[in-house]
């Protein structure tokens, strides 16, 4: 791990923080829009977990940066090109089917990812992952249940879920692609090599889809770019919401 600099670890940690804050943001948009009150509370709960995860990662990045950066300066004062989250997180929340399918695909990924990150030679990353695993287990139980209930519910719910799965599929490939930077950190035992997670993920997703009477998309399309800051047009709007106060009244305590 010695050849890896704090600056490199910070860059890696920011990727994970951005994933979590953007996912949490999209979930938090559901507040008071849920299909019934219990689900409104559950979505808020999952949103809180992701915001909490983002805060832990940002706080660690701030410590590594050691230049006066804070969790909030990372979240609130960087522009689109500096955000390095994977694209799947930033897609608009869509209908409840879209939110459920995205959450399920992300949960199957996050759980495995965090299980691996737990073995990181970086003790802070390993500790954050250990906490995240417990949450992801619960998230996955919930989102998998929704896959079954809505996939195998009514004709309408099945149609909506299938549509959502088709719309999301092209954004899943990016989850498993490591650039050279991530691979070097993975080789040093700090980061996760996500390509190793793909087979298990695909097996789990296939099994769930089959049980949920949904078909795995076969169309051959994929979109990527999040880790290089090449985002969809949606992220800018998300950031203009998220960052409004800090941008309008810069440098204040809140």
């Amino acid at each position: 791990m010695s050849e890896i600099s704090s600056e490199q670890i910070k860059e890696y940690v920011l990727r994970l923080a951005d994933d979590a804050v953007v996912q949490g943001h999209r979930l938090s948009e559901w507040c008071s829009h849920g299909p019934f009150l219990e689900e409104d509370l559950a979505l808020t709960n999952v949103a809180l977990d992701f915001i909490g995860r983002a805060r832990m990662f940002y706080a660690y990045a701030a410590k590594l940066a050691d230049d006066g950066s804070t969790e909030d300066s990372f979240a609130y004062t960087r522009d689109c090109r500096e955000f390095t989250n994977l694209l799947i997180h930033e897609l608009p929340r869509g209908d409840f089917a879209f939110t459920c399918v995205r959450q399920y695909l992300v949960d199957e990924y996050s759980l495995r990812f965090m299980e691996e990150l737990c073995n990181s030679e970086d003790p802070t990353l390993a500790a954050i992952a250990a906490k995240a695993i417990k949450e992801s287990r619960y998230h996955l139980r919930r989102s998998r249940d929704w896959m079954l209930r809505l996939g195998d519910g009514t004709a309408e719910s099945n149609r909506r879920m299938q549509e959502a799965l088709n719309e999301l599929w092209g954004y899943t490939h990016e989850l498993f692609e490591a650039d050279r930077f991530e691979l070097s950190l993975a080789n040093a035992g700090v980061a996760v090599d996500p390509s190793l997670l793909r087979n298990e993920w695909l097996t789990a997703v296939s099994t769930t889809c089959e049980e949920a009477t949904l078909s795995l998309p076969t169309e051959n399309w994929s979109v990527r770019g999040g880790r290089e800051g090449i985002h969809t047009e949606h992220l800018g709007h998300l950031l203009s919401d998220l960052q409004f106060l800090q941008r309008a009244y810069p440098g204040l305590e809140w």
Partner: protein
Amino acid sequence: MSEQHEQIFQNRIDAEEKIEPKDWMPEAYRRNLIRQISQHAHSEVIGMQPEGNWITRAPTLHRKAILLAKVQDEGGHGLYLYSAAETLGISREELIDALHEGRAKYASIFNYPAITWADIGAIGWLVDGAAIVNQVSLQRTSYGPYARGMVRICKEESFHQRQGYHIMMTLARGSADQKHMAQDALNRFWWPALMMFGPHDSESAHSAQSMKWKVKRQTNDELRQKFVDQSVAQAEEIGLTIPDPDLIWNEKRGHYDFGEIDWDEFAQVIAGNGPCNRQRLTHHRRAHEDGAWVREAMVSYQKKVQQRREAA
């Protein structure tokens, strides 16, 4: 027979016994409670909207997490209260239908918009503050499930009030813009917060009977006075001014005297002419309608699982 029942019922109330769901109760007592508890539940749920309006724009991740947790608590309160109302023999669907059809009310304060971040502070400090004054008193209400619900709710509400006050304090000690934002929110929310306690005792349609049944334990005016008395020092502490030129300490009464509420505005907002009445109901109705396919799918899936289990 019924008169005898009513006498026994009133004797139990007078002896401070709690009335429980299976106990005999006058029909009017039951109806009055359903009205009050469901209004309370709907208020918690509709109140998620103005606060939800700021969740995505909260100024720091810490404030965002606090606000998310708060709004989640409010929804949870809505759930206990719907359950408490259900013990009186009405379903949640019926309660929600009554809300959508305008037969049930919710706290009028939520018909005012949360325009700035300071409004989230003002809502926590003043609106939750006023709600607590009312709810502390309701911990001694005569209906058992409602009283017990209030005990739990009060604990969480006082936490919310402190968080709201902390937002106001931070703004009041901040830049000139922030202080202005805080004062402006206080100006807009102060009078609507006083209106939360309802009409004067002399004008209140349900008060006398509710007091006799101990559904209410203190009158609207008593509770309002308590709220004014506690809020003045809190405003002074952080250097904000309560927007009432008639506000003055009355040594003889041992209370603050305060100006008259604009009862015309109160009536207007209740009649549906507040800034957000239509928006709040439309939002709730739309979320409910948008979720219909989800609820149908759940029922359908449940049936399939049942059938498979029986076939196996």
